[in-house]
């Protein structure tokens, strides 16, 4: 059942310095889980689709999504798109430079 989203007017704070990948984890320890950013487009964003990472819903297309560093099989809910899934390596991204993938 889809939850009704509150109609909240978005107010963005003044943008701080961008999160450059090297700044995120100064210790450089790759074994500490880190956050990555993914942006999935579906066709020309005429329609929003739920994005699935390894079969689990993680958000919607056309919105920047956060995921832990790792490899994922990305697909969309519903059918009628190509390719059926994309295997991605999500690492070294930032909120202002997410990994972008496209389904058609």
């Amino acid at each position: 059942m889809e939850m009704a989203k509150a109609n909240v007017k978005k107010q963005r704070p003044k943008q701080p310095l961008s999160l450059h990948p090297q700044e995120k984890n100064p210790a450089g320890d790759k074994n500490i889980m880190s956050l990555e950013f993914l942006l999935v487009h579906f066709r020309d964003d005429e329609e929003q689709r739920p994005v699935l990472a390894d079969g689990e819903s993680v958000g919607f297309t056309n919105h920047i999504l956060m995921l832990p560093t790792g490899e994922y099989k990305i697909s969309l809910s519903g059918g009628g798109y190509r390719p059926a899934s994309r295997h991605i390596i999500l690492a070294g991204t930032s909120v202002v430079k997410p990994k972008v993938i496209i389904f058609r």
Partner: protein
Amino acid sequence: MPAFFLMLLLLAGCATSSHFENYPSSSGSNAERRSIDVSHPDRPVILIAISGGGSRAADLGWVILKDLRELSYTSNGQSRRLIDDVAVVSSVSGGSVIAAYFGLYGPDGLDHFADDFLAADNMRTLGIDADSPLTWLRVAVAGPYDIDVMEQLFDKQLFHNKTFSELNQAGKPFVILNATDMGGGEVFAFTPSRFDDVCSDFDKEPISVGVTASAAFPILFSPVAFQNYSATDCPSRPTPQWITTELTGNSEPYINLEQYKKARYANDLRYGGDRFRDIQYLHFSDGGLADNLGVHSLMDAIFSPSNIPTYLLTDINDGYIKKIVVIIINARSDPSSPIYQSPSPAGLIDTIEGVTAIPIDAATASANSQAETLLAELKQAAAAAPVDAEFGGLKVYDVEIDFDQLRSTDEQQKMLRDNAKTIPTSLTISKENQRVIEQAGQILLRQHPCFQKFLVDMKINPLPGFTIDKKYAKQGCP
């Protein structure tokens, strides 16, 4: 010579076979009935981790929960208690006693916890004097105490034969009790999905077994034993996609080794193809051996939908959640070591204490550091988010509670700190020490700058006797 044979007989008694405390699942899939209600964006989502530390930890967790019950705000024109927004409680050892109690009896049931558990001389009920050398001699000769005595204590005093089906209900918070798998040192969280991995029935499992597995003090008590029914009762199951992706991805071991190992462990438990180990039986001891704060499961609850399906990350990505409060309650003791006053090298007992306690503290500090880093990244991402990120504007309040935060410049707080850190790790706590924990806990939560900042943002009045310093809150909670 007769003494030698007597010793052999006694030692032979150590090789006892285990009875298994889990039940095979008929379907191989346990229902998860809990979920987090995010339909009201003005409400915060509160996540709590409660550390080990015997009754000291149980008491501190209880004090914090009671304070959350006393604080309320207005939502949709109605008064709402903060404790009703507690969505996840992850716990270890003594912390698991209060976590399970809260999960079962709810906020209003907290009033009975002191009588049911804290006031009782539980070590006497168990028949154990942990301070007596004779106890350890008995363990050395005859083996550990049977873990059943601890299960019976928890059942009789607290849980009364209730099972996890009572915790796993709609409207209830996710309560995650964590034990340590003695075979490989992994965290074993008592969750429906983990029970799927070992083909066991989660709803049938007694709560007292989960709490005992989380609190089974090593060496003193025998571990809690499970049989892995995957090979016999759930053969040829399909492998979850996340496990396949993790184990077949060439980059995963390099970019997220921890997640790769979690996937490998889950695959082994499920008797999946190309498994690393054959795990037929599991022996659980105190969760504090692997993670004495319970933060691994707390982070999984936020960031790993495959491990613990709270779907918090999805809700964050969709912009449904605007405030997250993470309260990490660390009740660790820190008594002064006698070797600081001795010119001689540490003796055998002090060395044994050191080689057990120091790695646990180090592992806990590392886990805590990971949690701090992740939460800081989450804060930064929310602050820097462009307009096409729905998580923009999310506020994260990282409230770590530790006795060392009691101020050494304040005589009363310094005394509380010194007293709290020397309260022994035991299932019995004196009335005087309960008072110490009560006072310390209230100060620690109410004095925390991030908690004060949260109260300001929520327009919540502080509890009587405490004032909010907005400048201090802003400076101390970047």
